[in-house]
């Protein structure tokens, strides 16, 4: 950590106009999935004769990651949403030069005094579940309601046609499975075939899709207020139902299928999303995206397994997600697909 502290101090002195005597302290690495190295730290410096101190978060590209994404995509998402009603940390600096910290990184404010609930806990939010849940689904709807052009994101991300959004996403994750499977995946392959044979209607709108909006990827405070939506590295433009389905995936509710994300009931969750987004979550459309969500999950866990197996990334979360999360999604999908196969024969 001393090495990071020293190098980052030099960076801040270079980057912050008028800053001198920069000190970096209380550096600690935290888990932020395995897609970036994430550090909490405090920075203190003198500027215009005044002492300044800020809690910060540093997100640095790893050698290999769970998801191959561009870090400026995540940074741009924070920058786009920070002025809106969607709570996100203030993005501060994006650095692509590798001279400072060996790999590209970005810096944002640290939101203190908060925690993230675990999707693998039976009751991650305790008595705050209802309050947090209402905000969670409303914020997701608010994201869906935004205009990508007005946010300045349309120029940074591919904009699919409304009838092509599903195919693009499915092709992406199918290729991940093709490239990374360590063992044949009959359930994933059956699901992909079903998704292709039964495409959804065109998206009601092409919206900003967070890509990993779920329990575990937001911070809340002791009063039950959501203070920051995190982990925007899979952000893209697409059908907003993708986000709703991902957030409601059974994996994130630890055996509470009626309370997606471990918060409020499904019916209320969907209604709040519809109200905030101005869109409709038609059950048949949503079913397609729910099956897709589990396929996407499988692709991510399969990829994690390959990274661990090859020695590229041996963070234990890679092995855990490959073992446990693959099992959950295989069983969730198999149950759904068996029923759909029987339905198709009627």
């Amino acid at each position: 950590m001393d090495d990071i502290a020293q190098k980052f101090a030099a960076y801040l002195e270079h980057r912050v106009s008028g800053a001198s005597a920069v000190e970096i302290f209380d550096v600690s690495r935290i888990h932020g999935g395995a897609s970036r190295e994430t550090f909490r730290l405090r920075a203190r410096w003198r500027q215009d004769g005044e002492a300044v101190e800020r809690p910060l978060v540093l997100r640095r590209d790893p050698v290999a990651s769970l998801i191959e994404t561009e870090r400026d995509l995540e940074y741009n998402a924070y920058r786009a949403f920070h002025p809106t009603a969607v709570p996100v940390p203030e993005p501060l600096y994006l650095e692509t030069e590798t001279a400072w910290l060996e790999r590209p990184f970005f810096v944002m404010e640290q939101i203190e005094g908060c925690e993230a609930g675990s999707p693998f806990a039976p009751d991650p939010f305790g008595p705050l579940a209802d309050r947090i849940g209402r905000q969670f689904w409303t914020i997701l709807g608010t994201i869906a309601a935004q205009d990508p052009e007005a946010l300045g994101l349309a120029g940074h991300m591919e904009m699919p046609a409304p009838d092509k959004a599903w195919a693009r996403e499915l092709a992406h994750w199918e290729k991940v499975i093709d490239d990374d499977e360590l063992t044949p995946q009959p359930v994933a392959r059956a699901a992909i075939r079903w998704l292709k044979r039964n495409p959804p209607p065109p998206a009601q709108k092409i919206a900003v899709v967070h890509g990993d909006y779920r329990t575990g990827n937001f911070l809340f405070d002791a009063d039950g207020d959501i203070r920051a939506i995190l982990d925007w590295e899979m952000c893209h433009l697409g059908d907003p139902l993708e986000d709703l389905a991902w957030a409601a995936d059974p994996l994130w509710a630890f055996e509470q299928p009626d309370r997606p994300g471990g918060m409020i009931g499904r019916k209320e969750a969907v209604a709040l999303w519809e109200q905030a987004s101005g869109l409709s979550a038609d059950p048949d459309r949503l079913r397609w995206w729910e099956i897709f969500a589990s396929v996407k999950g499988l692709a991510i866990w399969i990829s994690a397994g390959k990274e661990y197996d090859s020695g590229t990334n041996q963070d234990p979360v890679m092995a855990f997600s490959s073992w446990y999360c693959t099992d959950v999604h295989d069983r969730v999908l198999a149950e759904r697909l068996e029923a759909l196969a029987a339905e198709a024969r009627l």
Partner: protein
Amino acid sequence: MKPDLVKVMNGTFGTLLFEIGPKLGTDYSSGSVNLMGLLLLLGAEEHERAADTLFQDNRDLRALFGEAAGIVPDVGLRGRLAAAAAETDASLRISALTDANDGLKTLLVEVQAYLEDQAEPWAGPLEAKVWHVLRANLERRKVTFPSLG
């Protein structure tokens, strides 16, 4: 070896989770150690059941393929199904059982895709049987662990 591997892995899980992890101080280190402990716990269960799981999976898939070989009209597929049904597991090493299982699963993917395109009355019950066998396979492999608070 005694104590047996399951006991050693479970014991190590407990030590990591309750004695070492809490003393590490940083979120990342203690979180990583907790996860490593959890992997040992899951690994212990897998060590205990892996050979049995794979043996039963392979047996069930071969029985399914033997039945399917008498039903599907496609001559090439019928031949591949019959050949797979006739195989046996000569070794109980996990690697050998896994290799056989991978081969059977590859054929299973082909069979499922084939059945989905068949509308004749014989296809539905066979397709349902495939799902039944596959779901039994998944239940056998179900990963269970204590909730992480």
